[in-house]
C-alpha cells in the first residue's frame, strides 16, 4: 500500500471536461467533482458520469487517506466519493456523508434494492460492484495432472503437493501475503472460514483461541508452496506471477480476473479459471470476505449540488455503462451478464462467504494483524505468543481511540 503511495505520487488524476456531452439523459450545469479509487471499474463509471458535462473525476488509489479530510471540509472538496466497506467507516463516523433516501426515491428508479447500503434503516451509499478474493487456477495444469478443482484448503495443499512433484511451475501457490493490509486481510478471510469471531463483549479482542491457531498454522503450511518472497507479494505481484506462468493457484481478487486474459500482458490467456474461495474446513463457508464498492454523496454541500451529484452518479451506474464494460467487474447494476471471469466471485458469494465486518474496531484489528502475523510465518514467535501480542497491540490502539475502556 505504502509503496503504491509513492509510485503513484503524482496520482492518476484524470480531468474529464465537458466537451462531449453524449448519452446522458439530462444536461448537468452544476460543477461537480468526484474522488474515487483508480481501478478499471471506476474509470468506466466516471467516464460515463462525465458524459453529463461539468464533471471532473479524480481517480487515486490512495483515495482512502484523502477522503476523510476532503469530505470534512466545509464546503466539501468533492461531491461524489467512491468507497468500499471499510473506507465508508471513517466517513460515517465523521458524519460527512448524507443519507440518500430522498434522492433514491426521486432519481433511483433503476437501482435494485440489493444496491442500497443501509445503516440503521437509512441509505448511506449505493453499491455498484462486489469484489472478493476467490480461487484462480490454471485449468490446463490441473487437467493434465488429473486434479479436481480444490474446494477446501486441505485439497489445495494436496493439489499443491502434486503440482510441485510434477514440477510444471516454479511455485504451486501464490498469495497476497504482503505484510500490512494484505496479510491482515488473508488472516481475516481464513479466520472467518474457521468460524472465528474477532471481538467479545465491550470490544475486547477474542482471537487468541483454537481457530486463531488453526488459521496461523494453515497460513504457514500454504507458504511452503509459495515464492519465499511472499511477505512482499501484493495483488499486483500475484497477478504478474499468474500472467508469467510462475504459479498454478492463488486466492486472488475478482477485480484482477480480467488481467489474466489480457493478451498484452498475459502468457496464460484463457488458461486461468475461477472458482469459489476454498473452505477452511470441509463443508464450511468459503474462507473469504465480500467487499462492495459504491458511491456516497458529501453532506457539506448544498442540496442543489447533492441532487445534481446524485443524478450524475446514476448516469454513471446505468445499464449502458455496464453493457459497455461487462467484464471489467462483477457489477451489481441491472443489465450485467455474468461471464466466465465472474464465476468465482458469484460462487463465493452464493456459497455463503460473509461481508467484510467493517467498523472502527475492525480497522484497528486489521492493522494489528497485518503488522504481526508475519512474526509467526518467519518463525520469530509461536502461534499463541503471536495471537497474544496481536490482542495486546489491538488493545493499546483501542484504548487510545476510546473504543475500549
Amino acid at each position: 500500500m505504502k509503496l503504491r503511495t509513492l509510485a503513484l505520487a503524482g496520482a492518476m488524476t484524470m480531468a474529464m471536461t465537458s466537451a462531449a456531452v453524449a448519452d446522458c439523459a439530462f444536461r448537468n450545469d452544476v460543477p461537480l467533482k468526484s474522488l474515487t479509487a483508480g481501478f478499471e471499474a471506476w474509470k468506466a463509471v466516471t467516464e460515463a458520469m462525465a458524459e453529463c458535462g461539468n464533471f471532473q473525476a479524480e481517480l487515486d488509489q490512495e483515495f482512502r487517506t484523502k477522503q476523510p479530510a476532503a469530505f470534512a471540509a466545509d464546503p466539501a472538496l468533492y461531491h461524489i466519493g467512491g468507497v468500499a466497506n471499510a473506507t465508508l467507516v471513517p466517513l460515517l463516523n465523521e458524519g460527512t456523508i448524507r443519507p440518500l433516501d430522498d434522492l433514491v426515491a426521486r432519481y433511483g428508479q433503476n437501482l435494485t434494492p440489493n444496491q442500497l447500503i443501509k445503516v440503521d434503516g437509512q441509505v448511506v451509499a449505493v453499491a455498484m460492484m462486489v469484489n472478493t478474493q476467490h480461487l484462480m487456477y490454471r485449468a490446463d495444469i490441473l487437467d493434465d495432472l488429473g486434479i479436481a478443482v480444490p474446494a477446501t484448503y486441505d485439497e489445495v495443499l494436496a493439489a499443491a503437493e502434486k503440482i510441485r512433484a510434477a514440477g510444471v511451475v516454479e511455485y504451486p501457490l501464490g498469495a497476497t501475503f504482503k505484510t500490512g493490509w494484505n496479510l491482515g486481510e488473508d488472516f481475516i478471510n481464513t479466520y472467518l472460514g474457521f468460524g472465528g469471531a474477532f471481538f467479545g463483549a465491550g470490544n475486547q479482542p477474542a482471537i487468541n483461541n483454537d481457530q486463531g491457531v488453526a488459521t496461523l498454522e494453515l497460513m504457514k503450511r500454504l507458504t511452503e508452496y509459495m515464492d519465499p518472497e511472499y511477505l512482499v507479494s501484493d495483488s499486483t505481484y500475484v497477478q504478474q506471477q499468474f500472467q508469467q506462468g510462475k504459479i498454478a493457484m492463488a486466492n486472488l481478487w475478482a477485480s484482477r480476473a480480467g488481467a489474466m486474459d489480457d493478451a498484452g500482458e498475459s502468457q496464460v490467456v484463457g488458461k486461468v479459471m475461477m472458482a469459489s474461495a476454498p473452505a477452511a474446513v470441509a463443508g464450511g463457508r468459503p474462507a473469504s470476505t465480500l467487499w462492495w464498492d459504491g458511491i456516497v454523496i458529501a453532506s457539506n454541500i448544498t442540496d442543489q449540488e447533492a441532487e445534481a451529484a446524485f443524478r450524475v452518479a446514476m448516469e454513471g451506474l446505468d445499464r449502458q455503462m455496464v453493457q459497455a464494460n461487462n467484464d471489467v467487474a462483477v457489477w451489481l447494476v441491472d443489465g450485467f451478464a455474468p461471464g466466465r471471469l465472474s464465476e468465482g466471485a458469484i460462487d463465493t458469494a452464493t456459497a455463503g462467504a460473509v461481508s467484510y465486518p467493517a467498523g472502527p474496531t475492525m480497522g484497528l484489528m486489521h492493522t494489528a494483524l497485518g503488522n504481526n502475523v508475519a512474526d509467526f510465518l518467519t518463525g520469530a514467535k509461536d502461534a499463541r505468543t503471536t495471537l497474544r501480542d496481536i490482542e495486546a497491540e489491538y488493545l493499546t490502539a483501542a484504548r487510545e481511540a476510546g473504543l475500549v475502556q
Partner: protein
Amino acid sequence: MKFKTFAAFVGPSLFLMFLFIAAPLVSVFLQGFYVTQQVFETVDVETCTPGFVTQTCVTEMKTRPVFDNDGKVRTETKFVGLESYSNLIQPDRALAALGEGKWSEFMTIDFWRALRFTLTFTLITLPLAVGMGLAIAVAVNNTLRAIRGPVIFVSLLPFIVTPVIGALSIRWLFIGDGIMTAFLEWALDRDIAMFAQGWTIESLMLFYRVWHVAPFAFVVFYAGLQTVNQDTLESAIIDGASRWERLRFVVIPHLMPLIVFISLIHLMDSYRVFEEVVGFSSQAHRISLQWLTYDLLTPDDSGNRSISRASANSMLTMVGIVILLYPLLLRTWRDHRKGRL
C-alpha cells in the same frame, strides 16, 4: 559589532527558528502526554450490504461515535502522562523477553526492532561512507588531469538520483527474478531470494545508502585535498614516507575537520533513514524509527491513527540523535575553543 546591529541581523532568523522549530517541537512534546479520542456509544445497528441476488442485513451491537447537536463528532482530550511512551517501548514485554534471553522475541516489539535497525544502519554506513568517499577522492586526485572532469561527473551521479527512485531501482534489480538475482542464480548455480529474509534486504539497504552518499563525502574530501600543503607533502617524500604514510600522517590529519563534518551530516541523515524502508518495502523484516512514526500517523481504513504514540516516538528519535551526535559536537566545540585560545 554593536548589539543593535547584531540583533537586527539575528532576530528574524531566531524568530523563524522559534516559529518553525521550537514551537512545533514543544507541541509534539505535549501531544505525547495527551490523547484525543472520539466519544463512542454502543448500540444495536442494522446494516444491509449486497449479496448475490438478495441483500444480507445483520443487526448487531456496534460501536459508533456520538454526534453533537450541530453534527460535529464529540471528542475529548485527556492527560495520560507517560502512557503513550510505555505503550511504545513496552517495558514489561521488553524486559521479560530480555530476561529470558529471547532476542528474537525482543525484536518483535516495533520500537526496539526499529531502534536496532536504525542504530546498526547508522553506525555501519558511517565508516563505509567516509572511507569510500576518501578512497574515491584520493583516487580521482591521482588520475590524469585530462580525464578528471568526466571521472568526477560519473562519481557524482549516484548523489543526484532521488533517494526513493534509487532505492526502487535497486529493489527492481533484485526482487523476484530481477536481472541481478537472475545473474547471481546463474553464476552461483543456486536459487536466491533476496527479499525472503531480513539480512539480505538489510545488506541491500546498507549498500544502497553507501552508494548514494559516498559521492557527497567524495566532493567534500576532494575539495579538501586541493588545500593540502604541497611543501609538507614534498618534505614527507624526501623523508622517505611511503604513499600510505603520507596519507596517514599528512593528508588525513589535514582533512580531520572535514571528516568530523561529514560524520555529523551522515549521522543526522542516516539516523532518520526512511526512503530505504519504503523503497525496498522491507517493513516485514526491517523498520526504522522514522518509518515507525510515519506508520503510526497513517490512518487505517477506518480512519484511526495514533498521534500520541507517534509524538512519543519522534521525541525518542530526537533524544537518540542528540546522544549519537554528542561526542562529535563535543569535539567540534573543543576545537572551536582551542582555536579561540
